[in-house]
């Protein structure tokens, strides 16, 4: 047992050395690991959504494949793989394939700057072994926003390339929706950045240490960011692209097989990503207020890291449950209501939030509290 621990320690110590080969090996390994974790979470979410919706509607939900229907997502994936992959006549074949790839790539790659836990000390020199893929990115929060803004192309290209009127209309509507809410998202964030004084994810989390979570200081910012996340992931009540009565299937009307599967997967991966970002920005990230005092844990120990992982995932799953809960509770917006909410309510509110936050911070500084 000890020898295994020692071997792991030695391997991690070797990987934590900052030279280019190790950075490459470590990034690929961590990237692969994150990809697998997000796939498992997405599969679990598919199951969870069906179970929760069934529970809310007093049904059973999936219960045939595996215990409690847990293997249902696996069966779904197998089905999607063996389905015929149809691209419609006159469709632009290349962009028809590229669109779902962009959607899933963006949903996954945003996770590189998310920090689920800090680091452990390895080896005799106490080198730090970080758990996030890109741990020291100075502008981490902007990387998330920049990648999110690219996600619009997946939807737009899907709508345009299909050569279908419903697809084009759905793609346009959802891309207009996404860029509108991206604005409120970026503005709602400013308050958090003012408190943290940094774009670095590490600093954003440490500024909320010991229960000083931003949700208590930036409640309006939290609500705006949460609503914008719903819109950004195209989930109910903002699932206009999937408004069946008017748009059939929206931008993925002409998608079938695994290409549709990738869009479907991207939706759930985006949900998980948004929850992780919300947790980091407003719920203190991996911060568990009791961990240091009550349990007497030190930074850089294995136990501390496990507690951080546990806290982070507990918060993320609480938010994910909220996402599902909202979808099966609220009716869908009308498109004009949705755009009005984004431009005429959330935009001015988030601007006001910045001014109020700044004013309060200056006052607190005057009285020497801050």
């Amino acid at each position, binding site marked *: 047992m000890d020898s295994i621990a020692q071997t792991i320690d030695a391997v991690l110590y070797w990987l934590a050395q900052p030279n280019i080969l190790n950075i490459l090996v470590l990034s690929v390994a961590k990237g692969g690991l994150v990809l697998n974790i997000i796939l498992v979470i997405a599969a679990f979410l598919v199951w969870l959504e069906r179970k929760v919706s069934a529970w809310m509607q007093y049904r059973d939900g999936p219960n045939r494949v595996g215990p409690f229907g847990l293997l249902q997502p696996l069966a779904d994936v197998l089905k999607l793989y063996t389905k015929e992959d149809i691209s419609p006549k006159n469709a*632009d074949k290349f962009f028809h394939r590229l669109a779902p790839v962009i959607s899933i790539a963006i949903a996954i790659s945003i996770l590189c700057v998310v920090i689920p836990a800090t680091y452990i000390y390895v080896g005799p020199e106490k080198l730090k072994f970080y758990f996030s893929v890109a741990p020291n990115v100075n*502008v981490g929060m902007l990387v998330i926003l920049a990648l999110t*803004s690219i996600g619009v192309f997946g939807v737009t290209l899907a709508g345009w390339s299909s050569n279908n009127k419903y697809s084009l209309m759905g793609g346009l509507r959802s891309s207009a929706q996404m860029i509108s809410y991206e604005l409120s998202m970026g503005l709602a964030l400013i308050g958090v950045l003012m408190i943290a004084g*940094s774009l670095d994810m590490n600093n954003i989390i440490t500024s909320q240490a010991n229960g000083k979570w931003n949700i208590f200081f930036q409640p309006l910012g939290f609500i705006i960011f949460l609503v914008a996340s719903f819109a950004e992931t195209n989930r109910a009540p903002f699932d206009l692209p999937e408004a069946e009565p008017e748009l059939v299937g929206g931008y993925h009307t002409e998608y079938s097989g695994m290409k549709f599967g990738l869009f479907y997967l991207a939706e759930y991966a985006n949900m998980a990503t948004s929850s992780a970002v919300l947790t980091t920005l407003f719920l203190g990230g991996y911060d568990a207020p009791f961990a240091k005092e009550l349990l007497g844990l030190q930074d850089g120990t294995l136990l501390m890291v496990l507690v951080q992982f546990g806290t982070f995932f507990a918060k993320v799953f609480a938010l994910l449950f909220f996402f599902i809960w909202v979808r099966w509770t609220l009716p869908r917006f009308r498109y004009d209501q949705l755009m009005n909410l984004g431009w005429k309510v959330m935009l001015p509110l988030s601007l006001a939030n910045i001014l109020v936050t700044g004013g309060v911070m200056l006052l607190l500084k005057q009285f020497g509290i801050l």
Partner: protein
Amino acid sequence: MSLQVIMFMILGVGAIVTALGTITRRNPVASAMNLVAHFFMLSGLYLTLQAQFVAVVQVLVYAGAIMVLVVFVIMLLNVGKEEAHHESFTIRKVLGLVFAGAIVVQMLAIYLGSSPSAMSQLSSKSLTLGATESIGTVLFNQYLFPFEVISLLLLSALIGAVILAKRKVD
């Protein structure tokens, strides 16, 4: 060869290839997507110069906002595949070639005029200068007036956009 140089070469070649793709594709959407890829390459090139904030904003504003508008306009105007028309040797082409040649001469002059050691090394200040914090400090102290003027520029752009679009609707 340092990592910086290797990355510069990869990204530089990528930037040239995607730029060529932008101007040679017949399908306007393909051109636009090549341009998006090109902005990513440029963003990487900024990173090799340690300009982190500019690098991310390059993707955020150019690839994520302006290119969305470009794609919308392509779709709005329903620009089909560009017909292979044979443009004669116009004054536009001559002027284009003259300016392109001038840029090449200028770059060569800079390259040949400076010592190679100065080119391969970044200033030690560049790491802090590229960070968001120092940009904030400089922008809101030294360049406060230009910053306020930018809001006027954006305001006129807002009004211009509305007036142009409104005229089309009515």
